[in-house]
């Protein structure tokens, strides 16, 4: 009990020291930043994809990692590849007729054309994806090598490989096998396992505030759209005869399906709402987590604009809340990966109903 109080005291002391730090830093910050902070812009800007990887702004200069831009011109039909630093240090310059339009989602447009050029630039999110993939491959190749060198008689792995094994086997057995069934699950297991670990690693990397993490990848609808689409294809390509029969000729009174195909229409909608729910759930959850953390961070800067005292006191509160949110997001990162995999497995399992007779 005594130890606990001591521990608490230490935390309080830490928060107070942190506040003091803000107090010292505040005048410098107030001096350099004159214009009021646009919270919406700051939060959305941090969550959006970008052509460069912004790290910090120091004395009015943006410190960022420039990334390659790859666009196909509508003018001459050629592919242009150049560094995103060509757009100038605040991204407002025009290079070879291309410019970043802040009014239209900050995407690249071409002078004289209203439509977007073909754009497969290596953006911040793309780099983050490749970093995540590198991490995934490193983890699993390390594990696979461990197994390659050993026989079953050599016993079970411990430490990191053991942890990964437990995770893989629990997803494989308790989630995929349980939802899809012993008979068919092998066809889907690699995809679902990959999705789980990809989402998990991406979510966790998204929580790291600086390079090589921090890009909001799973909170981007493009990514969840892709996963939902692949799951949709798995469901509908490998769905068996019973599955299609339940859509077009379900076990309901005939008047509900014969003159007006009421139930078939509803079931047909169901085909699309299931993956849509998958897409939106993951996207919205990750987006919300990022948005809350970023908003709480913005509180620090806004309150310092009022005055140093308010700033210091509210920053301490904000800091505690950010800490709480970060811990919560750590949990959410796992839960969302788990839920996405589980629901995908459940939907796939529903597309493989066993033939049953009417009682």
């Amino acid at each position: 009990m005594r130890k606990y109080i001591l521990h608490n005291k230490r935390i309080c002391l830490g928060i107070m020291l942190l506040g003091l730090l803000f107090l010292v830093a505040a005048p410098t910050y107030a001096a350099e930043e004159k214009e009021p902070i646009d919270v919406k812009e700051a939060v959305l800007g941090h969550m959006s994809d970008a052509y460069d990887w912004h790290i910090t702004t120091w004395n009015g200069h943006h410190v960022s990692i420039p990334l390659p831009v790859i666009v196909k011109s509508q003018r001459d039909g050629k592919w242009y590849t150049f560094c995103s630093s060509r757009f100038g240090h605040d991204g407002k310059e025009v290079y070879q007729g291309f410019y970043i339009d802040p009014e239209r989602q900050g995407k690249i447009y071409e002078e004289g054309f209203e439509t977007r050029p073909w754009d497969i630039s290596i953006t911040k999110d793309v780099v983050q994806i490749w970093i995540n993939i590198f991490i995934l491959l490193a983890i699993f190749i390390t594990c696979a090598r461990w197994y390659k060198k050993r026989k079953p008689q050599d016993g079970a792995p411990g430490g990191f490989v053991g942890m990964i094994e437990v995770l893989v086997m629990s997803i494989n057995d308790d989630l995929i096998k349980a939802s899809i069934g012993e008979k068919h699950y092998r066809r889907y297991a690699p995809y679902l396992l990959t999705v789980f670990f990809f989402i998990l690693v991406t979510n966790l990397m998204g929580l790291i505030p600086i390079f090589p993490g921090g890009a909001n990848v799973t909170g981007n609808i493009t990514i969840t759209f892709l996963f939902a689409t692949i799951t949709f294809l798995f469901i509908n390509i490998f769905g068996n005869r019973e599955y299609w029969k339940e859509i077009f000729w379900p076990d309901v009174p005939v008047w509900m399906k014969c003159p007006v195909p009421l139930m078939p229409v509803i079931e047909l909608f169901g085909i699309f709402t299931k993956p849509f729910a998958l897409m939106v759930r993951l996207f919205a959850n990750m987006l919300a987590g990022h948005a809350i953390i970023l908003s709480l961070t913005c509180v620090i800067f806004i309150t310092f604009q009022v005055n140093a005292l308010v700033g210091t006191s509210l920053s301490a509160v904000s800091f505690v809340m950010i800490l709480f949110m970060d811990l919560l997001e750590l949990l959410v990162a796992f839960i969302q990966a788990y839920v996405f995999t589980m629901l995908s497995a459940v939907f796939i399992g529903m597309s493989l109903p066993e033939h049953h007779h009417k009682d």
Partner: protein
Amino acid sequence: MQNMPSILTPDFGLLFWMLLAFLVVLFVLAKFAFPAITSAVEERKRFIDESLQHAREANEKLATIQAQSETLLREAREQQAQILKEAKQTGENIIAEARAKAQAEGAKDLAAAKAQIAVETENALHDIRSQVAELSLQIAEKVVRTQLGEDKAQQAYIERLLAEQERQS
């Protein structure tokens, strides 16, 4: 669409790179990583099951062997007892037989001796009788010489008297 935040609108470039990246990672993990882990775990499970099965079989075998050895031991003990009993019996039989034989032999010897004695006695008696008869005759001759002559009829008469005497005794 363009007024919405960019995270809400699917972007072709990101989709393209994401699909590529995902296919790469799916290919590598599905080919090299997950099967290695799951098959290793399954093999380990099979190995453990087999080991348990073997242990159970070995235990059963051990129990059978123990039971067999106990039976064998018991049988051996029984046989030992049996053999000892038989040996004792045989010994007793031999002794009894020997005794019986010795008795029979002794009885036979005794009988022979008795028969011999009887024959000897007979002979002796015969001798004595003839001698007595001779002696009596001589005595009687000497006595009667004077009165009687040596007569054959008289001698036969005396013989007959002697035989009667003998029968009476």
